[in-house]
């Protein structure tokens, strides 16, 4: 018996490239345990440990950063190449921002800090795995690992109805998306007889071909499933409702991190596994991208709630990102990753300002809460302005360079008309981005504006919501830092370009 066991050899595992995943798993467990500590210690401990975990993961990811093809880990289940590491870094940075933004959030008093942060970390874990998946089964497991904690997090303001509604809505729509995805994965497995991306790619290139009906249905279902998660139209309808209802830090996390992970897997699956059939799926995705750009930007025009506005804007932005996937080239990969990074910066800046305002203003996340912000608190108004101008694609911001890169890609990939669609989308988007800027700076003032009283409110029983609401240096810090980075990368984008080129090399065997 013992000799028999000895002969069963486990797969060879290279632990070093897996270290980011291990770190985040360990972190999630430790944070969950820390939440059980008695008294008030866990209030500080859980977020601190989360920050440490995310910082460690980023450090490990940078340590493992190696341009070029990396091969697979754990019998072809995962890979740790620059594409997955780039997504890891974006997701973890977003995670850090989320921790800071939720530091004094009311959410933490409704659910335990330990659970909240542990769920956040497990979602991060799912996103990291999703971007590194090299196998259909791993893909699905990661997809669920990403989603399920988010369903809970959306509903984490348990005493507020919209939050619960948001969680439920996300759960139902997300499950439909997952089911569609799973169905598609099964079809692809049926057509190719394999769950490994590399073998699927070989099968398409040799015997099966994309014309196979099983394959076609499978690819269509997979695209639909992923489109749900990336809020690509016409599968975006959940986005505004869920974004509005969820606690705002979680909305920011979903808007950036989920999108990064979804586009990471979009790129790997379509460019890598299905790359040889690019001519077949590209027109369909191009059509989706066009619809998304138009629907998202038009939908945002009539929004008053900033969270809904940013939700619709994120739909429009998903359309731009999808344009980079459509061309299916190395350049497309680079441009999409570049835009994802930039998109993260400007969105976090915008959400941070929304959070700062909704804590102190009775209008909440309504656009009215931003009125005269340029006068009352310019240190919040400038980051918001920069974020809006960057999202609209004004020059001297990173958003301009990102859009330039995407248009460049579409033109080189013979999809020049898609580049023009990006431009038309940006023109429509001016209608709402400029409105936000106008509310902050251009409002007519014919009365005395009372500056918010700056005072230190003593903590009562360890926690005073008012004191928390007023003292929000970390929120302003996140807003200013991300806005400054948006400007910095708009003027000196070369570091981001270097990273993007490294990411492009991760699928070098294809090009």
């Amino acid at each position, binding site marked *: 018996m013992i000799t028999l066991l000895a002969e069963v050899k486990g797969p060879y595992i290279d632990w070093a490239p897996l270290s980011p995943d291990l770190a985040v798993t360990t972190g999630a467990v430790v944070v969950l345990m820390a939440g059980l500590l008695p008294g008030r210690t866990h209030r500080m401990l859980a977020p601190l440990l989360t920050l440490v975990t995310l910082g460690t993961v980023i450090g490990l990811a940078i340590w493992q950063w190696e341009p070029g093809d990396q091969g697979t880990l754990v019998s072809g289940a995962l890979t740790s190449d620059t594409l997955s590491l780039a997504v890891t870094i974006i997701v973890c940075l977003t995670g850090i921002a989320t921790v800071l933004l939720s530091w004094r959030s009311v959410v933490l008093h409704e659910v335990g800090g330990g659970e909240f942060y542990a769920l956040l970390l497990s979602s991060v874990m799912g996103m990291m795995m999703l971007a590194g998946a090299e196998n259909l089964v791993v893909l699905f497991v990661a997809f669920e690992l990403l989603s399920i904690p988010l369903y809970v997090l959306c509903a984490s303001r348990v005493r507020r109805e919209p939050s619960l509604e948001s969680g439920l809505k996300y759960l139902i729509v997300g499950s439909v998306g997952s089911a569609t995805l799973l169905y598609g994965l099964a079809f692809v497995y049926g057509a190719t007889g394999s769950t490994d991306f590399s073998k699927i790619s070989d099968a398409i290139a040799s015997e099966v071909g994309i014309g196979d009906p099983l394959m076609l249905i499978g690819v269509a279902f997979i695209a639909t499933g992923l489109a749900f998660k990336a809020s690509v139209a016409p599968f975006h309808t959940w986005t505004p409702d869920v974004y509005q209802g969820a606690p705002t830090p979680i909305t920011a996390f979903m808007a950036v991190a989920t999108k990064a992970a979804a586009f990471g897997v979009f790129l790997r699956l379509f460019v890598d596994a299905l790359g040889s059939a690019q001519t077949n799926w590209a027109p369909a995705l191009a059509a989706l991208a066009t619809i998304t750009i138009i629907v998202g930007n038009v939908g945002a025009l009539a929004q008053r709630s900033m969270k809904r506005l940013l939700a619709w804007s994120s739909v429009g932005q998903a359309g731009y990102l999808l344009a980079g996937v459509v061309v299916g080239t190395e350049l497309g990969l680079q441009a999409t990753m570049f835009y994802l990074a930039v998109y993260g910066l400007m969105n976090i800046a915008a959400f941070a300002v929304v959070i700062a305002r909704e804590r102190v203003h009775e209008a909440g996340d309504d656009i009215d809460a931003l009125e005269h912000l340029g006068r009352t608190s310019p240190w919040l108004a400038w980051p918001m302005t920069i974020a809006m101008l960057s999202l609209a694609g004004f*020059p001297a911001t990173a958003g301009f360079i990102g859009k330039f890169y995407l248009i460049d890609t579409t033109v080189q990939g013979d999809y020049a008309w898609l580049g023009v669609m990006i431009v038309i989308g*940006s023109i429509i988007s*001016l209608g709402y981005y400029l409105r936000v800027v*106008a509310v902050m700076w251009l409002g007519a003032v014919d009365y005395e504006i009372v500056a918010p009283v700056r005072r230190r409110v003593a903590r009562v029983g360890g926690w005073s919501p008012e004191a928390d609401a007023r003292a929000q240096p970390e929120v302003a810090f996140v807003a200013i830092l991300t806005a400054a980075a948006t400007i910095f990368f708009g003027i000196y984008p070369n570091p981001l*370009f270097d990273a993007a080129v490294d990411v492009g090399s991760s699928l070098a065997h294809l090009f």
Partner: protein
Amino acid sequence: MTIHLSIILFLPLATGLIGAFLPRGLSRWVVLAGTIAVLAYWIAMVADFPRSGGGLQYVTQDMWIDELGISYALGVDGLNLFLIGLTAVLWVGATLAACFREWDRPRLFFFHMALAETAVLGAFMAQDLALFVVFFDLMLVPFYFLIGAWGEYRRVYSVTKLVIYTLAGSLLMLAGAVALGVLSGTNSGQEISFLFSDLQQRTLPEGTQNWIFWLFAIAFLVKMPAFPFHGWMPDGYRAAPIPVLIVFSGVLSKVGAYGFLRIVLPTMPDASVKFQEVLIIVAVVSILYGSILAFSQDNARLVVGYSSVAQLGFITLGIFALDDKGAQGALLQMVTHGLVVAPLFYIIWVLSQRARGSELLSNMGGLAVRAPVLAGLFLVVTLATLAMPGSANFVGELLVLFGAFDSKLVYGIVASAGVALAAVYMIRFYQRSMHYRTGLEVASREMSLRDGLVLVPLVVVILALSVYPQLVLDRSEDATKGKIAPATEVANR
């Protein structure tokens, strides 16, 4: 003496940033000092500039974004030398005019003024298409705030309309610029480059040129504005505060015309010849439409605004005559029109202060009675605007018309009606405001010393240029010829 263009370019922005952190009273003077320094530096540049045939001078060229092939390339030749000068002169005038008034949030106001100067200078100096697009779009940001936050009459509505109009054009141009750079690179099998010098050598096949041409043309025609794209102009001009309007109308409209000469004609000669007639029709319609509307407006700002539409029609006509004389005239006209528009708007401001803040001609009248100096300066500017023989504007318009006669006689004849119409609307404007029966609410008085500080230098520049237009013509001749040569070659083929 070595001239560093980067210094001129970023000096205003630097002073604006410094001013933003200084006490309220001080920031304006810092920004003003910055604009004066730019002007001084420009004068040094003109003195140093070769009288004829110098080619591109003071070139600064570095790689900005390697992966996209975008360079940070600046340079000055005969084409942009005087437009940079126009920018420098008008910004001094406008900033000075602004300094004499109290503004709400002054640091922010002057910061935006300074940022705007940097953006405009950048658009004129850029020798790389992508860099040009960056500055061209960047211009809108400060003007959005300047008009939207400190404007008058329905400012938010007007500025939103203005920005959406012009940015729609700019963004289409962004797509066109990327397509031009990328396709000409792949077409010639070379590295992608957005340098004007490279783009000029790598011409695209005609079919590709045709659609890219329109992406650029719409952006530039909106910016000017030309006839069917001028919808933002009446609201925008009424909303803008006068110092802002001085530079907006005086300089920004020229960027569009400059773009045609710098980018469209050299890089897309086939399309330029193909659509020559369309653009000429746009130009002629703009001349007639602008002139007729200028004649029928009661609001003084709109008289000048619509006259600008007509004048920019002349400039477009000169450019698309695809003729040496026409292009030269167009360039001279850009400079002289900028120089006359600025004092005109300032005078409107002075007049409205004497007519209880009204800018309607029907509320003015008889203002010359106690203000002979103001009337004299206004008369000089009026005569220059209507292109009185002896003025530099006359030289410019004449050259434009000669160019048009040479290439498209019929359109030239129709356009020359515009010269007569200009006399009609400008004299009407002058008479209604300065002469006629004194308006009911009018309190005529001489202009103040401060007004003189703004107006007199501008009028002196107009007179100087009228005496010696060769200053511009000599130095720009080779450059304008070079820019239209590719198109004339195609036309003669």
